């Protein structure tokens, strides 16, 4: 299965949201990384058929997804950034409703499996209106997986989740990620570092780099520095360098930063992670999990 974006452009009046986005995706977990406004949601909405691109196209195994229509939607699972549920429906009723819309066969069994997967069995009969943000996200994932999609789109799936919920989410994605194309948009690097097969870096609507987490980390290897400082020095350093964060560990306080040149005579090389890649490309520190 091969999903190809060919020179996809999207503009809203004077604003160019997406410019010449081209990439070929195969089965696996693909993380779309970029700051807010980078065009991640626009790209996902175009793939889901909710937005029409200004130019370019998306094909699945050579077939135009726009022309595929229902056949494409049948293999698509989508979890938008802003989840909307009917408050007076329970989780089961919500899933039953969407199962009918997606023509899911043997829906009872499938719903039961998904509720177990997202750990909502105990609350399945409670009204969704009373769910916490994390429970709603989990229900959103179950909903996206309802039709056992070959292409799964998750737009900021971990927004507003606590660390425990995030961990649970990562486990779920790891479980369901095989044999399908999972596209996961986020600006929280730690959510995808361990589960993504490759990362697409989007900035101001353009694809600026692509590769597996290891490949991307290799690109910033040698540019990542730890500078030992006092706490006060570190705080004043951060005021002038947005591309850095403070790390407290045994041996004192360090400023962790990415720089082409040695930023300080006391600086020493540090191991590069996906967060450093993010810092290198986007010039800012990612939100921490």
């Amino acid at each position, binding site marked *: 299965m091969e999903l190809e974006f060919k020179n996809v452009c999207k503009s809203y009046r004077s604003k160019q949201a997406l410019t010449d986005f081209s990439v070929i995706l195969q089965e696996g977990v693909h993380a779309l990384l970029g700051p807010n406004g980078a065009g991640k949601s626009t790209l996902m909405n175009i793939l889901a*058929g*909710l937005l029409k691109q200004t130019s370019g196209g998306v094909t699945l195994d050579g077939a135009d997804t726009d022309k595929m229509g229902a056949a494409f939607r049948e293999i698509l699972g*989508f979890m938008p950034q802003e989840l909307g549920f*009917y408050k007076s429906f329970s989780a089961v009723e919500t899933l039953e409703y969407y199962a*009918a819309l997606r023509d899911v066969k043997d829906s009872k069994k499938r719903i039961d499996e998904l509720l177990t997967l997202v750990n909502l069995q105990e609350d399945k009969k409670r009204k969704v209106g009373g769910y916490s943000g994390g429970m709603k996200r989990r229900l959103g994932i179950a909903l996206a997986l309802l*039709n056992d999609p070959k292409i799964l789109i998750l737009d900021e799936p971990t927004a507003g989740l606590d660390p425990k919920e995030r961990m649970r989410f990562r486990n779920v994605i790891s479980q369901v990620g095989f044999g399908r194309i999972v596209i996961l948009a986020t600006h929280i690097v730690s959510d995808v570092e361990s589960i993504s097969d490759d990362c697409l870096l989007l900035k101001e609507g353009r694809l600026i780099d692509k590769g597996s987490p290891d490949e991307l980390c290799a690109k910033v290897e040698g540019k990542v520095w730890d500078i030992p400082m006092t706490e006060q020095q570190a705080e004043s350093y951060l005021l002038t360098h947005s591309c850095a964060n403070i790390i407290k560990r045994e041996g004192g306080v360090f400023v962790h930063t990415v720089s082409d040149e040695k930023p300080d005579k006391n600086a020493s090389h540090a191991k590069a992670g996906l967060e450093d890649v993010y810092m290198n490309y986007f010039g800012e520190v990612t939100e921490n999990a």
Partner: protein
Amino acid sequence: MLRIFFTELKKLIRINRLPLVILLAVAVRAVLCILPSVHEHPYSDEVYKSCTAQLEGRLTAEKTEYLNSRLAEIDRLIAAYDEMQQRYTAGEVTLDEYSAYTERHGKAKAEESTVRYLCRKCKALDGCTDFDKQIFCDTAWSDLFEDNGFDCVMLIALLCIAVPAFDNEYSSGSFKQLLTSKRGKAQLAVSKLAAVWVTVLVLSCLMNAVRLGIFAYHNGLTYSDMPVGNILLTDGFGDTSLIGYYLKDTIIKSLIWAMYACLFSLIAVLFKNVAFAVLAGFIIGITPPMISSGAGGENAVYFISGLQLAKMYAASVELWLLAGIILLKGVLFSAAASKVWSKKA
């Protein structure tokens, strides 16, 4: 398609609290039917009842002749009042003769309006040819038809059903999940509309059934098979019975309400706000019945179908044409609502 229709219907029932809306609407309708209503008749109800009981059955020349002669006698008795008073004052008639006269005069006065109405009715029926002319006490049926005007309760219930059916998707933010499901936008919108149509049709029929049920409880359905022309005093209905007329009118009104449901759905998707959509829907819904008395020309009823909600249908109305136009309007409103709904997603 049926699965998605039933799912939408279930959603309508659960989310819009449909059973509560229907129950409330029916309860209010029932209370309004039970409350006494005032009807002005061109005759005395009691006298009409006894006269029609006396003359009940097929209208014959003898019955017409009897009524005409009775009216002539009543006119004579009333006209003689001044003269009799003068003769009594002048001592030309005895007290017994005068008392007997005043008694007959009083009876004549009491019967005058009723007998005059019956004579007019017989004359009007005389000119009719396409139904079996009968004399019977039709007051209750006549009142039922008169009461079957614009139903504000139905309008409010309809707004409570149709508007949230579409606006819920905006307020709940469930659009994206809906539109990325296998069913296309058009199928989704049609299933929503179909669920609303069916609900409204059922509710409208239910409301009219409640009205008829309470009527039957109070008055019975004794004359229900009489041709309606006997009450409306016109040709054009053929042998349509009183109950048949009521049922046909119920179907026409229900179709109009269903068409209104499509219009209100369109308003809902245009406004994307329940409160504004309900207000606009109420104004649009109530306007045709309010102007119905002033709407000139028989053809107005085809263009402004809502006029038909204010009264029972007239003999001049071509039912098939009216039903066709209502369905066409419903389809147009539905198509527009569906288009706007999916576009605004």
